């Protein structure tokens, strides 16, 4: 029926507006970004004054003359691993809980997805209120139990504190993904396991987990990619500090391009590194999510 309706060339015509918009608003800016990354343009100067430096900015970044770059790469990797690990564990737990709980399930799901519906900056603000040393609720709770207060956003713990917020924002997405996965699993093996008297843990370990494997891989990459581009909440919480404690790549880009030095050209080089990193991971994701379909 589809072929009878389709005319030659017609299908592509329907796609033109969207494709054109995304070409103009993503492909062109990326090409322009690549060009800016090869200049030494500084914010506030006339655009005509820019100098072409070729790969000079990239050489500076990789060559270690800019020691903060490799620190920020390490921070990004650490942040992405913490957020991904944390939200996968939490998301799996919440998904299993929601899958089993019938009463109030809609309400609980709604509360769980709220972080998705809230601006990252506002999410960062909420946690900043809770992390506050003097009147934050976390220190109030800690003090009433141990008599001590913690400086949550200090050098030693800031990355973890920021990662908790990252988990708060990423786990709902992971939960929805796993919940859909759980609901799509065939029931027969689980009934068989029940008849055989398998424990809940055995069922999870030897049935649920292996069957969810393809979904877990996809969610992992999705979450890593999403964590690598996190900006709003970290900007609100620490602005990459204290010092370089939470200086992940987007924050480093912000500091170099718009912050104290305002060398937009170099900021652009950092941005382009982030794009390359993301697209590499996305290529892996696409290859992986295709495999099960072809079988």
């Amino acid at each position, binding site marked *: 029926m589809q072929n009878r309706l389709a005319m030659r060339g017609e299908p592509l015509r329907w796609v033109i507006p969207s494709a054109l918009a995304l070409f103009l608003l993503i492909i062109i800016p990326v090409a322009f970004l690549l060009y800016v990354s090869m200049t030494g*343009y500084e914010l506030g100067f006339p655009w005509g004054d820019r100098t072409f430096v070729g790969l000079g900015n990239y050489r500076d970044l990789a060559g270690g003359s800019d020691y903060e770059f490799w620190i920020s790469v390490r921070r990004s990797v650490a942040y992405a691993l913490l957020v991904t690990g944390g939200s996968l564990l939490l998301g799996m737990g919440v998904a299993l809980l929601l899958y089993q709980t019938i009463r109030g399930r809609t309400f609980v799901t709604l509360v769980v997805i709220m972080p998705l519906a*809230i601006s990252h900056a506002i999410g960062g603000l909420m946690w900043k209120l809770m992390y506050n040393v003097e009147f934050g609720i976390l220190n109030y709770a800690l003090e009433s139990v141990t008599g001590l207060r913690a400086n949550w956003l200090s050098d030693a713990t800031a990355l973890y504190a920021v990662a908790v917020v990252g988990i708060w924002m990423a786990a709902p997405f992971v939960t929805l993904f796993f919940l859909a996965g759980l609901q799509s699993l065939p029931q027969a093996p689980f009934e068989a396991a029940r008849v055989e008297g398998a424990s809940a843990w055995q069922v999870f370990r030897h049935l649920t987990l292996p069957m969810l494997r393809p979904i877990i891989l996809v969610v992992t990459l999705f979450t890593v990619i999403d964590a690598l*581009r996190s*900006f709003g909440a970290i900007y609100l919480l620490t602005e990459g500090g204290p010092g370089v404690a939470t200086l992940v790549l987007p924050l480093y880009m912000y500091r170099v391009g718009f912050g104290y030095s305002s060398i937009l050209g170099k900021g652009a080089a950092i941005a382009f590194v982030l794009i390359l990193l993301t697209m590499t991971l996305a290529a892996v994701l696409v290859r992986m999510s295709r495999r099960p379909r072809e079988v």
Partner: protein
Amino acid sequence: MRRRLLTAARYAGVGGVLLFFGFPILWMVLTSLKERIYLYQPGRWLFPPTLDNYVAALTKYGILDYVKNSAIVATGNTLLSLAVGVTAAYGLSRFAFRGRDAVALGILLARLFPTITLVIPFFVLAFLLRLLDTHILLILIYLTFNVPFVVWAMRAYFDDIPREIEEAALVDGCSRLTAFLRCILPAARPGLFATGVMCFILAWNEFNYALFLTSRVAKTVPTAIAFFRTERGILWGEVSALGVIAILPVLVIAALAHNVLLRGFSLEGSQQ
């Protein structure tokens, strides 16, 4: 006994989940209702609530203008995103063609793209085109994430509309475009509405572009937070009030049409 323990553990789990995901929101709402003296008594749950922080935020700091900006940008972008994305969604739903997978892949990559990196080229381009700090700039740029969303979401809705509807129109001699405009779009009205609500939320919440590309005239609600950093420190009560204003549309939608949110974010999650 064992079963009862399990049930108790499950309820504790649900309680923990509600606390972790919901409490930060509740805490901000509470903070926004506190007078300054109660701010420093975090353990005090009962206090006379005040709307002073809201009044201060709206009058003294001109948040009303930013609410207006956010509404203009989010509404304008939602309508434009629907207009631009809806035909592609229909094309993907109705035709099997070579390149369909490539189009779907492009949409996925657009969804995964680190948009924060485009702040720099957009900043320079907008500077050169004299578009910095304008509504239209944000309305256009927000297409980068909302068009992929519209294509994906509306495709699912179009899939649910029986083909007989437009076939009847085609037999009657309508062109496909006419059939689409006269028959399919009206039938997809609930889907358009739900998708539009989601677009509105995503545009309303956007922070990165608005932070770098607006300064005064077109500043949106989330980026106004920075205004509350004064020499005396952050004005916590006022900034919390601003935060509540920023999440108000979402809270209203959650209360009136929670299915839109549940389905919308599940869709956003299943983009592949």
